């Protein structure tokens, strides 16, 4: 792994950390769900860096795409804000 990729990974991991903190703090579930989608997306980039293209595609399709979709449907039913 060359240092450029590592530097990129470092930047992405900072985004990961911010993402989890946003999920924890946000009272708006929409923001939290989008946060988890971003985390899945970054994880799929990490899989690509780690030479696992199969996992990367699956994580991008399932983790970032489909899971977000079903979560959004569920959120529509259960209400968007945490304090109800």
């Amino acid at each position, binding site marked *: *792994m060359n*240092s450029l990729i*590592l*530097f990129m*990974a*470092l930047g992405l*991991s900072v985004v*990961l*950390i911010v993402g*989890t*903190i946003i*999920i*924890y703090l946000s009272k708006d*579930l929409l923001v*939290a*769900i989008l946060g*988890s989608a971003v*985390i*899945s997306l970054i*994880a799929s980039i*990490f*899989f690509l860096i*780690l*030479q*696992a*293209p*199969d*996992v990367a595609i*699956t*994580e991008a399709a*399932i*983790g970032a795409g*489909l*899971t977000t979709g*079903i*979560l959004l449907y*569920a*959120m529509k*039913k*259960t*209400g968007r804000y*945490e304090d*109800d």
Partner: protein
Amino acid sequence: MDAGLIFYGSAIFLMVMGVFIAITGRHLIKILLGIDVFDTGLNLLIVSFGYINGGTAPIFSKYPNIFKNVVDPVPQALVLTAIVIGVAEMAMGLAIVMQIKEKFGTCNIAKLKELKW
């Protein structure tokens, strides 16, 4: 820069935060999100275990010129399974949450007090 610190570190950080969100979350969907984050971290950790320095993806597009140095394919295959299982669990959990919302009228875990010690 230490590659191990970045990949292992961010994977384990995701796991820790996932458990933390699942334990302290009050909204049921937040709890499921925590479990999802935990699973993502675990998958990242497993794939990082399989990485081998200088290895390429285990796909030999120029057969029979086999390029020997590849990363471990087994953890990748296992993670594929784990991802799919994770989404299945999530779907099941969301179905339960939606029914809870309908029956209890709330998704706050502190207000689910039907069963007591």
